[in-house]
């Protein structure tokens, strides 16, 4: 009869304690170990597997895994097999990302560090990797400063900087949507720099900002933001939110019928988000950083096939980020003929990616001065679904990376090498 005894009341204090514990919960996510080999070269990935960015995180992981399999099939790195160590960084907790990065570097002694999707977490991880002198590839964190003011000799980035996305997107937004812009911007590093870059690019083309609101990361209800944006009477609401926030914001805007009164568009858009939207909300002008339909570009079809076989779906830009990042590790070691981080970083500066790894119309390369990968940007509009149900983006134009990259001086990167 123990279960009928009166429990000590769960009081206000307990509820409060419990509420506090929610924050602490982010500290204990799972981790995955790859199979053990003999004296393998280790690549450590600390990236979101849970939370808002779990879906892009899993796609980046799939890209990494495909690259690992290919590298091993071609004899590994410097003749040694390659293994991937994966840690869940969470989607928004910089403390966890740092702790996981330290674990990978100090306990597992990884030779390369990869991550993070969340720009703020990527910046925090770069501090650690720089302190430890480990070659660090950022697959998918976009904020300018990673290869700008906060650049490091050991940090390379595969995805676009927010400036590159803004420059590629601004002209199309003015042409297709109009000059008065209202921004809905996620309140963290990525959103801040993307909005700043768009404002700068818009000003050059005669665009103006009629308003802007910062939405907390993980906002589910955007109705009050949309009410405010609509009241400012813009030509276009520019959505800079990402992941689930993008899905929630766009979906609600379309439910409110705002697409019939003004334009809904933005800069960075991803296949993951469009897949999460109902067909009627797959609208607007955007840029994609990589797209799986690239008629005539060599090796892209093989890559798409390989990923389809592995995951059952087409690769997204995220899959490509993971793929290129992992291959970059192998290319760096190969070029330097060493696993010494400084030698590899020197070798990567200016390196052009072979077409079977770059998988874009122009030749992708790492800019020597700031370690940013310069590659094509795909400008166009979302569509409900073409002949292929996974074809949710219509590419109107491919911008050359170097044309939208902005100068190194503007970015403000000054690499300091260890003496």
């Amino acid at each position, binding site marked *: 009869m123990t279960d009928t005894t009166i429990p000590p009341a769960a*009081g206000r204090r307990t509820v409060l304690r419990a509420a506090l514990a929610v924050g602490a919960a982010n500290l204990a996510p799972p981790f995955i170990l790859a199979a053990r080999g003999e004296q393998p070269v280790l690549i450590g990935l600390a990236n979101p597997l849970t939370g808002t960015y779990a879906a892009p995180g899993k796609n980046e992981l799939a890209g990494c895994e495909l690259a690992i399999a290919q590298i091993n099939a071609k004899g590994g790195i410097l003749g040694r097999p390659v293994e991937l160590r994966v840690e869940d960084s969470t989607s928004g907790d910089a403390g966890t990302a740092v702790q996981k990065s330290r674990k990978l570097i100090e306990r597992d002694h990884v030779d390369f560090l990869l991550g993070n999707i969340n720009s703020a977490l990527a910046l925090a991880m770069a501090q650690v990797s720089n302190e430890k002198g480990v070659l660090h590839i950022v697959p998918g964190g976009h904020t300018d400063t990673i290869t700008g003011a906060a650049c490091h000799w050991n940090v390379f980035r595969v995805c676009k900087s927010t400036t590159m996305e803004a420059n590629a997107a601004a002209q199309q937004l003015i042409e297709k949507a109009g000059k008065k812009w209202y921004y809905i911007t996620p309140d963290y590093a990525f959103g801040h720099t993307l909005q700043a870059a768009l404002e700068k690019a818009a000003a050059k083309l005669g665009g103006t900002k009629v308003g802007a609101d910062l939405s907390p990361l993980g906002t589910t209800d955007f109705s*009050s933001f949309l009410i405010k944006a609509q*009241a400012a009477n813009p030509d276009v609401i520019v959505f800079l939110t990402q992941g689930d926030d993008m899905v*929630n914001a766009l979906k609600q805007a379309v439910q409110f019928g705002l697409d019939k009164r003004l334009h809904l568009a933005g800069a960075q858009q991803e296949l993951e988000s469009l897949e999460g939207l109902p067909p009627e909300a797959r609208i607007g002008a955007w840029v994609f950083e990589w797209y799986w339909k690239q008629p005539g570009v060599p090796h892209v079809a093989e890559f798409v096939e390989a990923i389809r076989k592995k995951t059952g779906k087409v690769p997204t830009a995220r899959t490509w980020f993971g793929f290129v990042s992992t291959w970059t590790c192998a290319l760096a070691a190969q070029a330097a003929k060493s696993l010494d981080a400084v030698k590899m970083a020197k070798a990567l500066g200016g390196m052009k990616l072979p077409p079977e790894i770059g998988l874009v119309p122009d030749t992708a390369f790492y800019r020597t001065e700031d370690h940013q990968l310069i590659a094509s940007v795909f400008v166009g509009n979302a569509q409900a679904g073409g002949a292929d149900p996974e074809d949710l983006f219509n590419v109107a134009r491919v911008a050359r990376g170097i044309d939208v990259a902005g100068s190194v001086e503007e970015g403000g990167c000054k690499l300091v090498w260890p003496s």
Partner: protein
Amino acid sequence: MLQLILFNVFNGLIVGAFYALMALGLSLILNLSGVINFAHGGFLALGAYLAYSLMPFVGFWGALLLAPLATAALGLVVERLLIRPLYGRDPLYSLLLTFGLAYILEDAARFIWGAQSLPYPIPSWLTRPLSTQFFFLTGYRLFMVVLVALAVGALFFILSRTRLGMRIRAGTLDLETVSALGVNVRVLRNLNFGLGIYLAGLAGVLAAGMLGLQPTIGTSLIMPSFVAIIVGGLGSLPGTLLGGLLIGVASGLTTVFFPSASEAVIFAMMGLVLLVRPRGLLGEEGRLQ
């Protein structure tokens, strides 16, 4: 400006009604069993995903009917197998259990249905805004408010007019005496838990139509419900309802003036209530403190 504020008050009530629906289920369970059900968000997500899987077979309305019932059935099993052994212990035990369960449910959803968000189709006549002026009042949101009102009405009817409800209320006040009077407290708690989880499942199906499906949908919606309970007053269901509506409006109004604090404001409100009136707005003095 005035219009913007009015719109946001109105809109806040819609959002708040939804918070209240989740919070009422939590509150029911907390009041009778002393269990702080952290897995409430997990059950909510499960309700949403079950509806998604049922929809091809039974349609939108069938899913709306069946998915919350299926979730409640699972709730009954969970209460019987996992939570019942922990009654009578420090509430932290059941708290830790439901806390872990929340993770298991979220990851189960991710494992079964994938990390990728999925669209949840709703009948097209519900998707349209009802007027161009009040564009935020779509058919679906009105439908949601009506359904919340019905659910809340039914809940209060059950609690005040039925034998089960009266026993739940009596048990909330003095479980020992209720037990001594020959009421099977085990069954009572079990049914009460199921009722609470039913509300979570219903909230999940409604949220899916509004937001689509993400494994994290429960986690992101659950915190405001806890705040609603504390603001409204522990132990008081009308208080919980009021708390939900209040934080909905507060969050909406904050967006007008200082959008980046639209989430933080509800916690500031909680802090304020705890400082000025620790039992909550409608909570009884001395109860659950």
